């Protein structure tokens, strides 16, 4: 066992509604979609029309900038709707399942003799290439690039996140196969980050280079793990794959079929029974997020459904679809209420990393945190705070200021290649001035891509 990497900085947010170890089968739903807004930087072009009959793995879309990258249907059925938003922006290609679960059949290459091109070609044509994310910038990987290493995080430390060892307990073969596949794509190593002190199926994935991490969120973020194992410097390219997607990739190479089945959790303080659901990727939210499982709200108020975790996810309605990269749905109460003299109230039920609320008396308490911003936007005043929540050798405030100022040289010097917005999500959470740190980083990344390509 390699040595444990201990992270001291970060924060576990004690949010109510952690999922119970119970899985409900929700694979029988009928509406699925591929939603281009899930993929940053992609210019989607349609390959199908309403009424077309497709199988799992049939291409629905491709990226105009990289035409070999296609996005495939997760199920067999009929394309029933092309949803568009403002300015005809493509939102979702909706496929209604025929329930037969048919897939395109792919010829399984022998892993001993398969070349990098064979493997990449199969991932591309099965529509699984978008599962591979490239760093810097966090965009879909360039099939022509050669990464110096590939990283997979084996645990999720975000609030109310799924337990990956539980979710993947039956997937050992697929995980191991997935690692083999990834090894074909890089000359470097395939790294797997694990939480120190836990034992499970992921510990048995021994064909990857295992690293053990100890410490609070964001220890489970792959970006943080990269920074401690093999940091990204100027000119480096590193790829990352979500651990559930690793199993799905392995499944493709074990069976030759596209099977997007995965297990997600529905959790958070506003869920009646937080638990796991077995779904097929791209499922409509309402197919497993039942209104009856969302706590009732007072009249005039509402609940917020988030695809992903409470720090980094995106808002979805029940009519929309779970995000391509999401492993959880978080439900929170909307905090659109006033509070009399809120700035001085003792605040026993308020979670704060500062001890300015009396809630410090009960440190183990789990909180029902709603979406209230708790204050107004101000200039950055408190310093030295963000540093405590970014466990990397980075000066977050200077990096954020460089992003806000759009200074390419400074962003580069201060470490923009090493971070994605998610790695600095806790800064969003803790900042008393309510600075939108993730947004600033995202804009910085967009600018880098625009200016340097």
């Amino acid at each position, binding site marked *: 066992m390699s040595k444990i990497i201990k992270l001291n900085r970060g924060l576990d947010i004690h949010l109510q509604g952690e999922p119970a170890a119970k899985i409900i089968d929700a694979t029988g739903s009928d509406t699925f979609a591929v939603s281009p807004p899930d993929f940053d930087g992609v210019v989607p072009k349609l390959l199908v029309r309403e009424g077309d009959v497709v199988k799992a793995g049939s291409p629905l879309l491709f990226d105009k900038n990289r035409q070999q990258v296609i996005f495939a249907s997760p199920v067999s059925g009929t394309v029933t709707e092309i949803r568009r938003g403002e300015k005809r922006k493509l939102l979702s290609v909706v496929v209604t399942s025929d329930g037969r679960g048919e897939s395109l059949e792919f010829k399984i290459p022998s892993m001993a003799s398969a070349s990098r091109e064979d493997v990449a070609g199969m991932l591309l044509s099965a529509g699984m290439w978008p599962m591979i994310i490239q760093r810097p910038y966090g965009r879909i990987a360039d099939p022509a690039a050669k990464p110096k290493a590939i990283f997979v995080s084996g645990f999720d430390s975000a*609030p109310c996140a799924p337990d990956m060892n539980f979710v993947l307990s039956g997937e050992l073969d697929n995980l191991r196969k997935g690692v083999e596949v990834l090894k074909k794509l890089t000359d470097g190593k395939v790294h797997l980050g694990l939480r120190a002190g836990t034992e499970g199926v992921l510990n048995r994935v021994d064909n990857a280079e295992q690293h053990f991490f100890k410490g609070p969120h964001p220890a489970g973020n792959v970006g943080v793990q990269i920074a401690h194992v093999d*940091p990204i*410097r*100027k*000119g480096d390219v590193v790829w990352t794959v979500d651990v559930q997607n690793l199993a799905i990739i392995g499944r493709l190479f074990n069976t030759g079929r596209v099977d997007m089945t995965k297990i997600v959790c529905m959790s958070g303080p506003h869920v009646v029974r937080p638990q796991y659901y077995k779904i097929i990727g791209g499922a409509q939210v309402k197919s497993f997020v039942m209104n009856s499982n969302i706590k009732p709200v007072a009249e005039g108020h509402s609940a917020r459904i*988030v695809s992903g975790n*409470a*720090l*980094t996810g995106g808002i979805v309605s029940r009519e929309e679809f779970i995000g391509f990269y999401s492993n959880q749905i*978080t439900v*929170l109460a909307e*905090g*659109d209420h*006033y*509070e*009399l*003299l*809120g*700035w*001085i109230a003792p605040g026993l039920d*308020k*979670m*704060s*990393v*500062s*001890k*300015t*609320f009396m809630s410090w008396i009960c440190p183990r308490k789990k909180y029902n*945190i*709603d*979406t*209230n*911003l*708790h*204050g*107004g*936007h*101000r*200039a950055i*005043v*408190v*310093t*030295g705070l963000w*540093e405590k929540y970014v466990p990397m*050798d980075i*000066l977050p405030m200077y990096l954020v200021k460089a992003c806000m100022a759009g200074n390419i040289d400074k962003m580069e*010097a*201060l*470490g923009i290649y090493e971070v994605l*917005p998610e790695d600095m*999500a806790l800064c*969003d*959470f*803790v*900042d*008393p*001035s*309510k600075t*939108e*740190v993730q947004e600033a980083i995202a804009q910085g990344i967009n600018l880098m891509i625009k200016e340097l390509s």
Partner: protein
Amino acid sequence: MISKLLRDIVDRVKPPFEPGGKLGFLHSTFDAFETFLFAPNTVTKKGAHIRDAVDLKRTVFMVVIALVPALLFGMYNTGLQHFRAIGDVAAAADVLGCWWYGFVRVLPLILVSYIVGLGIEFAFAQKRGHEVNEGYLVTGLLIPMIMPIDVPLWMVAVAVAFAVIIGKEVFGGTGMNIFNPALLARAFVFFAYTPFISGDKVWVRGVTKGGEYLDGFSGATPLTQLGENASDMLAGADVWSWIVGTIPGSIGETSVIAILIGAAILLYTGVASWRVMLSVFAGGLVMGLLFNAIGGTPVMDMPAYYHLLLGGFAFGAVFMATDPVTAAQTNVGKVIVGFMIGAIAVLIRVVNPGYPEGMMLSILFMNALAPLVDHFVVAANVRRRTKVAKVKTVK
């Protein structure tokens, strides 16, 4: 119930103050009062969906709470010093009477500071269309606390105006300023109206106006005495009274105990940086010990810890040097700048014997240098990153 009733009233008077309404030009002002009464109902729109309950109002309010012990003691001490000066032993022994006497004299200073300062802040927020920043709630209380009790009210008003406009608003408001605005106000009075903030007449209420004072009474602060006649002062040193704070001085600065209670609140709630606070004291102590080692003059030989108890050192270390906006922004920078503040304050005092403004000048000086210190800390971080990259490319 009350909450609902109040909310209804606020909602009813709100419409004309909305942007575009009849009184829309007063939007910032209305917003300031509304958010004071009710924590706003804004929800997160981007970024993290959940946020820490703390905001700047809460943070700033914690500092105000931390200032209260020093303020209350300052009021008491105002009365105490006055009654001692006129030789009224009975009145000086009456704690509440002393406090009330001081309260009545200190309150006008606070009111003037808040009214003038907040007036300007509101006007600027209005003009810029911003929300009113809470920072002045602290600054406005700090300013009277670092003034002598006999400072004329108009002078406070002018100093506040200078500090807020030139010290803060020209840079873009709270969070953008280079110098600690409260200290700037004091520096302004010190350089523009020196006789009103130095010497031995101004620290006890009423002495400047003449009156019935005991023969041989001196209103000099220990620090002034140190400058005038170091050996006498040191011979009669009453360390305990310095710690408790029953000595003449600026209103809030005298009691080390009250200040340390404030420090405990600031550190426990995590509002102020322990790095800054600790390193200021360490800097002062180390510099004092250094002078002890050199020796020669009575001031140089004075026990090093005296420096930490006298004058504005403790107050400056706890409430001024820790101002997050004007302190260094990197953790390493905080330690360096804090240490320098303490060291330079003692250096000024010792080299220019008893010069009482050491702490003020030292903090303002290091405010100016903090960005430079940060620059080098940041450069070191950048170098670490690029150096590793170079090693890689060689391989």
